[in-house]
């Protein structure tokens, strides 16, 4: 049998969580194949969202709402998959650095990465270098993402990278940094792997670092 996935795609594009989760459940109940629902219903919708955003026809809040809608649908699909058949693109540990409480940029990046299929461990704000190190050691993420809004807290990024080195973990994780005062040059100076100027480029950079698509 064929299931019409267009209403699901439309709901994801519109960012209507209620309609999208209902459509997902309907498709599952109707015997739909989870992989097909994922590929043709959800990912196809997010491709359109991406195109419309790139063309300036959708704004960031709309894109994020679609990403959130997709996450809710994926959560419904998960039990239907055989264990291990839906794999994460990778795990990203994130936080704002020591003494920096400004987290909107970090939260945006986390949402975008999650929407793109990464698993996020969000450590919140004001994260001490040793706390980052401990989490990297325990969770073995592929990427550590640090954010700073204040020029005065930027040095904590270097301190964290140095602490990773001291703990012998620097080679085990890729380090991405961002935030208003941060620059590519600064990233180079402190030995980070990547700098991303905004949430959209953070996703592209994360994929590039892990060589996934």
């Amino acid at each position, binding site marked *: 049998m064929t299931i019409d996935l267009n209403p699901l795609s439309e709901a994801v594009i519109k960012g209507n969580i209620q309609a999208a989760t209902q459509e997902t459940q309907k498709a599952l109940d109707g015997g739909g194949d989870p992989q097909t629902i994922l590929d043709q219903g959800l990912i196809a919708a997010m491709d359109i969202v991406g195109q419309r955003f790139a063309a*300036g026809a959708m*704004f*960031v*809040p709309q894109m994020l709402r679609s990403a959130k809608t997709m996450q809710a649908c994926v959560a419904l699909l998960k039990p239907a998959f055989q264990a291990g058949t839906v794999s994460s693109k990778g795990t990203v540990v994130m936080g704002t650095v020591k*003494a920096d*409480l*400004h987290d*909107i940029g970090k939260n*945006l990046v986390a949402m975008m990465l999650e929407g793109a299929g990464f698993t996020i461990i969000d450590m919140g704000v004001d994260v001490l270098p040793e706390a980052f190190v401990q989490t990297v050691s325990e969770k073995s993420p592929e990427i550590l993402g640090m954010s700073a809004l204040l*020029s*005065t807290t930027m*040095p904590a990024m270097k301190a964290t990278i140095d602490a990773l080195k001291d703990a012998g973990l620097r080679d085990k994780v890729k380090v991405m940094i961002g935030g*208003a*005062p941060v620059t590519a040059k600064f990233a180079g100076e402190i030995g980070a792997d990547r700098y991303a100027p*905004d*949430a*959209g480029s953070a996703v592209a950079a994360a994929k590039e670092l892990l060589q996934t698509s």
Partner: protein
Amino acid sequence: MQLISEAQLSAIDKTAQRILERVGVKILDPDVRDRLHAAGNPLDTAKGVVRFDPSWLEDHLARAPSRFILYGRNRRHDLEMGSGRVYFGNGGRVFQIHEMTESRVRPTLLKDVAHTAALVDALDHIRFYIIACQAYDLAPAHYHLNDFYQSFGHTTKHVMGGVDTLKGMRQMVALAAAIAGGPQALRDRPFVSVMANPISPLTLDAETLRIMAFGAQNGIPLAVAPAPIAGATAPASLAGTLAQLHAETLAGVALVQFMTPGAPVMYGAVASTMDLRGMDLAMGSVESAMINTACVALARRYHLPIYATAGLSDAKITDIQAGFEKGVSNLLLGRAGADFIHLAAGMLDSGNAIAYEQYVIDNELLGMIERILRGIEVNEKTLGFDTIAQVGPGGNYILADHTVDHMLSEFFYPRLAVREQFDRWVDLGRPTPLTKAKALVDQHLKEPPFRLDPDTVDRLRKQFPQIVDP
């Protein structure tokens, strides 16, 4: 035409009070939280959120002074807050500088603190100095001793700065007291002030509260200035952002009065908007200017002097966009009668960068606005009936005494705007405001005077051996 009506202001004010009473403010210092709770404000311990009792709030807001002076080290630079006068100044604390002659951007250094202070000292329409930039060449241990030392060293205008830590605040106050001739002398004429800013939405950091308390106890005037971004850290509606900002500022002002009744504090407003097409901060947006303008009226409702915002631009370089964005907001805020308008000079790139030339250019714009604020003088002499009768139909006024009597007081003479006749302009090498500004920067920074006398410098260097040269 009014930007906002009394009824609209009243609705915003009421909503802010509802926010404080029902939503509350997250206070990250448990001690302050407990003291507020003990004073009768409901506390949600798990969330660290204090909700404000309306009568407590009203009592504490009433303690804030409606007039005070931000002193200059030179008395002619005293700023009378709450007097109805409008003062424009620069803003801080950026991390990069455009070097136009080199066509490059570089991180800011201690020498840039010294140079921007010297420029502000030399430029008449920039009435106070805010420490303009981060000094990347300064070690954290004695950071604020040094950025404030260079500021005092290069201007006698009122100096304001942000401090990162209570330790830094202590260093600054010790230095300022030593310059003043003791703590009491500093208390009598505080020539330095500090901003202590809530984080939007509705959050007050523990270290900020400690800095606030120390400043209030030591007679250092404060600005409590949240910087909500409409569409990101505040609602996407202008009225919603105003309500939230108003709540944040009122909470901060009341807290200062709770710590030290009567402490001089400014109602701060640093509103901006987010361009939601790509999540780009839009500090030069027309809505930012509108929100900041409406805040002047909100501050006035509480008889509080305002630390207002204008003159920001999202332009990356000194260009047409920088000109029109700065022009619109500076004029709106100036016309609204804001007491203390910061960020009005030197800034580029959404508040991320400065350029020396931009200080000189903005000084000219501010001169024009000050001229507007001075208004049109109408009296027997300026109406000029006698000279009109004397010249009569068909004559001219070039040689009239009346012209010579009034030509200096009536007109603002720009130093940068190009007014020469076209051929003359070509002969001069086609100067622009930017080329003229570059020449003036060179002139002002060639040998800027050091504004502390040699004996004081000797004394300070002995007392604070951690002072370094840029």
